[in-house]
């Protein structure tokens, strides 16, 4: 019998659905924090070299890719600068990063001897042509040397075997490089050789040699302003770290962090101060307060830093520090997560559970930061006062002092000249307006509709729609409009898995308003221009029908226009002993709308009561219809809109979690009416065959009741036929005892292995 298979599949799915509580530490749920943010990172100087560090740092790997890009870009730009912007950067990139050693050697030959042409690849390259025409022998020699060094210092494939550095060859290259260094006049090319040589020594794991080369080579050329100075410093610091000079190395890393964006990430990761003593010693190495401030900025960069505390220290040392603005924005973003819309964000519980947000000490944190911002504004030492004033107002907003925030925003409006900050102010004011919506009337709704349709910032800042909808939902709910509260957040289809009368009535009221606001119209109008009234009425009627209020349901369905009513057609009166939910009905089946279904039910009830001769048959037909209209029947759509294959038994009155419906999915698993009619049919039937059939269907009702009763521990695992408790096998017993001599009994024992198992008891 197929039903066993269906039961099995359904039960397995339920099993899969019910997620066990985890007991081992894992990587956590695959979820995202759900909150709002309105601060635009662009408020920080876009040219700031620090911006990528702070805004990409969170995702190291994404940032790692970016740092490599920045490094390449910086290097190419520097070459370009050296060549006075005479060649396109693309051409430089091709030579530095793509051209093979053989091509560069050919270029060198071509410089020496006009007869030798450039390789076809280089002929098209303006940088190569420039090097040839200007006979830049030293540069090309250096490029050859750099390409020779490359295999010894490049990253290896982490999946491959560990690299075996050829230290002998590397030393030979160092010797060669030292000679070429001497023969080079250009200080810039000398610096590049210095970098290559120090890098070789470092990769050779010869740390003393790394430091010796630094000491030896650096004084031998005039200082040149270049990113290479910091690249060299990185290798020097790395060697020092390996030699146990942690404090000195960390100091160098702090300089790299401050001055070299492409190496900032690695400098941060390599910076290692472990004790108070080391910290103090490292600070003593700093030349000035700016350098000391960088130490605090590095410490503030940790995810777990108390940013305001570190910002105070940076400010005291070096109020001009660009790090201050970055840390300010970074901390505001954290506080937004804690505080923005906390009263109405319906994901607050999940945020707390999975991300520990909002933090317990958020109140103190916002107060601390606000106090600090005020101090900075009052003392006039910071660089970008407009940003700090804006932050002042926004922190008031986040702290819940909306009046003060509004006042501050009004006060600073005329002071702000920077267009990005002007936009930021408008965004904060719009967020404040939404956040303070109360007692929404038609005037407010008009304004809300205008914001949605006409306000460009509403569209530009992607958190506005959620922020607005969550706020509206919260306010509507509080002011007694649960339907509108629902509708601003969900499509009407989300109500169908478990229709709620209160919401439906509230929305019907809106549909029937003579003069709905533009916003209300948006809530009730479908894409085709019609309203959702018929859908709501259908849901309401279906709700009553599924809850046994058939007459009320009929009255409601009759008020739905015929065209809308006819969209859904069913025939629950067709009997299927094989309980297939999705199988097609016979082609000849007539289909009825919900009004006609109920009318047919009334007709059968009347006949069952008045026609004593055939009453049992009519009761059987009613039992069949009611059975088919439950979760277990092919006409389940008469009384429900959504049927989950995984729903079977659950401890919440047949309400199952459903991700797109806030009220879950209520399955219509009530077998009472079907059982009642099958029992009436059995009891009144004079025909033992019909009585046997009615008993069998009643037994099936009881089996479904067993599967769905609260706290059922039955598991379908292993296709086990359940051992039914006595109260759920009354009709199987009756069938065995009273109707075992009927033809139906014979047939069902033969066809239905499931029943046959019970028959054997």
């Amino acid at each position: 019998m197929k039903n066993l298979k269906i039961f099995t599949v359904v039960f397995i799915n339920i099993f899969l659905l019910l997620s066990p509580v985890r007991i081992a530490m894992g990587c956590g749920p695959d979820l995202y924090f759900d909150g709002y943010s309105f601060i635009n990172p662009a408020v920080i100087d876009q040219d700031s070299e620090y911006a990528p560090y702070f805004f990409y740092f969170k995702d190291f790997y994404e940032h790692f890719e970016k740092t490599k890009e920045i490094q390449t870009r910086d290097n190419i730009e520097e070459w370009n600068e050296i060549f006075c912007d005479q060649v396109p950067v693309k051409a430089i990139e091709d030579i530095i990063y793509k051209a093979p050693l053989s091509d560069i050697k050919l270029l060198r030959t071509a410089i020496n001897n006009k007869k030798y042409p450039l390789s076809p690849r280089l002929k098209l390259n303006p940088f190569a042509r420039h090097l040839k025409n200007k006979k830049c022998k030293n540069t090309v020699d250096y490029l050859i040397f750099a390409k020779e060094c490359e295999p010894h210092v490049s990253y290896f494939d982490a999946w491959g075997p560990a690299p075996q550095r050829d230290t002998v060859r590397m030393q030979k290259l160092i010797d060669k490089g030292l000679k070429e260094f001497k023969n080079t006049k250009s200080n810039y090319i000398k610096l590049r050789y210095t970098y290559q040589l120090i890098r070789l020594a470092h990769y050779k794991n010869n740390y003393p040699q790394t430091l010796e080369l630094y000491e030896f080579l650096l004084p031998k050329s005039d200082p040149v302003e270049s990113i290479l100075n910091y690249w060299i410093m990185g290798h020097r610091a790395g060697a020092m770290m390996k030699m146990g000079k942690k404090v000195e190395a960390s100091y160098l890393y702090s300089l790299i962090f401050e001055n070299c964006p492409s190496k900032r990430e690695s400098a941060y990761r390599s910076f290692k101060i472990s004790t108070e003593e080391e910290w103090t010693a490292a600070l003593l190495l700093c030349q000035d307060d700016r350098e000391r401030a960088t130490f605090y900025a590095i410490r503030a960069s940790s995810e777990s830093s108390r940013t305001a505390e570190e910002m105070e220290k940076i400010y005291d040392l070096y109020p001009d520090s660009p790090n201050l603005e970055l840390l300010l924005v970074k901390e505001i973003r954290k506080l937004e997560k804690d505080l923005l819309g906390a009263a109405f964000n319906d994901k607050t519980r999940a945020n707390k559970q999975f991300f520990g947000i909002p933090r317990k000490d958020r109140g103190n944190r916002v107060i601390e930061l606000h106090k600090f911002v005020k101090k900075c504004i009052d003392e006039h030492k910071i660089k970008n006062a407009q940003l700090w004033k804006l932050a002042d107002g926004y922190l008031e907003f986040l702290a819940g002092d909306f009046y003060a925030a509004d006042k501050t925003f009004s006060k600073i409006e005329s002071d702000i000249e920077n267009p990005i900050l002007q936009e930021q102010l408008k965004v904060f004011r719009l967020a404040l307006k939404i956040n303070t919506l109360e007692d929404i009337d038609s005037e407010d709704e008009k304004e809300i509709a205008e914001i949605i349709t006409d306000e460009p910032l509403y569209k530009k800042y992607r958190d506005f729609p959620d922020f607005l909808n969550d706020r509206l939902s919260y306010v509507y709910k509080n002011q007694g409009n649960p339907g509108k509260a629902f509708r601003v957040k969900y499509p009407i289809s989300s109500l169908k898995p478990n229709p709620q009368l209160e919401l439906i009535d509230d929305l019907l009221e809106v549909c029937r308003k003579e003069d709905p606001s533009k916003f209300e119209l948006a809530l009730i109008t479908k894409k085709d221009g019609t309203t959702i009234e018929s859908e709501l009425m259908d849901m309401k009627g279906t709700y009553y029908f599924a809850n046994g209020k058939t007459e009320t349901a009929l009255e409601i369905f009759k008020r739905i226009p015929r065209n809308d009513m006819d969209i859904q057609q069913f025939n629950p009166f067709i009997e299927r002993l094989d309980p297939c939910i999705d199988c097609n009905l016979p082609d000849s089946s007539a289909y009825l709308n919900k009004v006609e279904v109920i009318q047919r039910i009334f007709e059968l009830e009347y006949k069952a009561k008045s026609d004593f001769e055939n009453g049992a048959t009519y009761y059987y037909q009613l039992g069949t219809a009611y059975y088919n209209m439950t979760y277990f029947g092919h006409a389940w759509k008469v009384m429900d809109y959504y049927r989950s294959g995984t729903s079977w038994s659950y401890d919440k009155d047949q309400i199952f979690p459903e991700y797109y419906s806030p009220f879950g999915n209520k399955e219509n698993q009530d077998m009472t009416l079907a059982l009642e009619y099958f029992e009436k049919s059995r009891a009144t039937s004079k025909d033992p065959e019909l009585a046997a059939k009615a008993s069998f269907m009643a037994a099936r009702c009881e089996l479904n009741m067993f599967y769905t009763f609260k706290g059922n521990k039955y598991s379908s695992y292993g296709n086990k036929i359940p051992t039914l408790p006595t109260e759920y096998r009354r009709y199987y017993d009756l069938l065995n005892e009273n109707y075992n001599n009927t033809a139906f009994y014979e047939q069902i024992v033969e066809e239905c292995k499931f029943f046959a198992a019970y028959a054997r008891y």
Partner: protein
Amino acid sequence: MNYFFKILQQLIILFLIGAALIFSACEDSYQPSITPAFYHWKNTLDISNSEIKYLSQVSAKKVYLRFFDIDWEGNKAVPISIIETKNSIPNVLEVIPTIFITNRTMINVPIQQIPDLADKVFKKIEYLEKGFEKNTINEIQFDCDWSEKSRNQYFELLRLLKAKFSSQNKKISATIRLHQIKYFKKTGTPPVDRGTLMFYNMDDIDDLKTQNSIINLELAQQYFQNFDKYPLSLDIALPIFKWGIVFQGDKFVKIINNLDVNELQDSSRFIKIDKNRFELVKSTYIKGYYLYQKDQIRLEQVDIKDLQKAADLLSKIVPKEDRSIIFYHLDSTQIVDYPYEELKNIYSRFY
């Protein structure tokens, strides 16, 4: 006749007693082989003399050596924290290369890329095994706290690796969490030769209210189901480590490994606020981490009594069969808290 029946009756009784004795003797005489072992969970293999001595004193036969981790970086699976070897594991010990795979790797890696990943993992282990040619290697272990989203990919990876290693006559094993046994029908059973039950990290580490996330025997017992039905033979990993969990407010911030209560005795910096909780009186460095005033530290450790209870509880529910008892992990600074006699006593409870 009566006499005959009496004799017969006595013979039957004697037979039954004899049979019972024989069967019970059979039962008692079966003593499973218990193999003591350790995890070595550091980036650098620089095993100290004290550690070597300890391994010998505990009569350890195996070391589960973390070879590398696999993480998802820049949109691809990459090996990280690859083991660096400063010295070697004594030749008498069997080495089980152990690979930790982050769940996010298995979530992100497309199923069609699994064969390629299996190939890379197989080769990488082969490369690294060359450093341990003097040790026996019969097994490779994979450690991943898989979830529903990653299960298919992870199991497919294990299936392919199992096939590859079986050609070298090597078995593969996987770590199993407690809930994965109770709910094994839902979580699935990894396609490996053996499992290792990780009997630690069982409570919610992020929750400020948790007393000890490493071990909570009351909670663990709620998961003592289906051990008799679990399809894999299980080795058991028991914790011998301590750490401090740092909270800011009620938010979990970080773990400080191997933090000892003695390091929190400076009252100018720390104040004890509860049995195993401390608060920072002022911002300060501790074990290389900078913590802030009012941060809280929850000290967690596993004492000998916990281990004894854990062993007693587990030995009653796991089938009596040959297995390894693996202590996590070998660290000279931690093992001082676990005298070798005590560890011997603990694993002997599984006989």
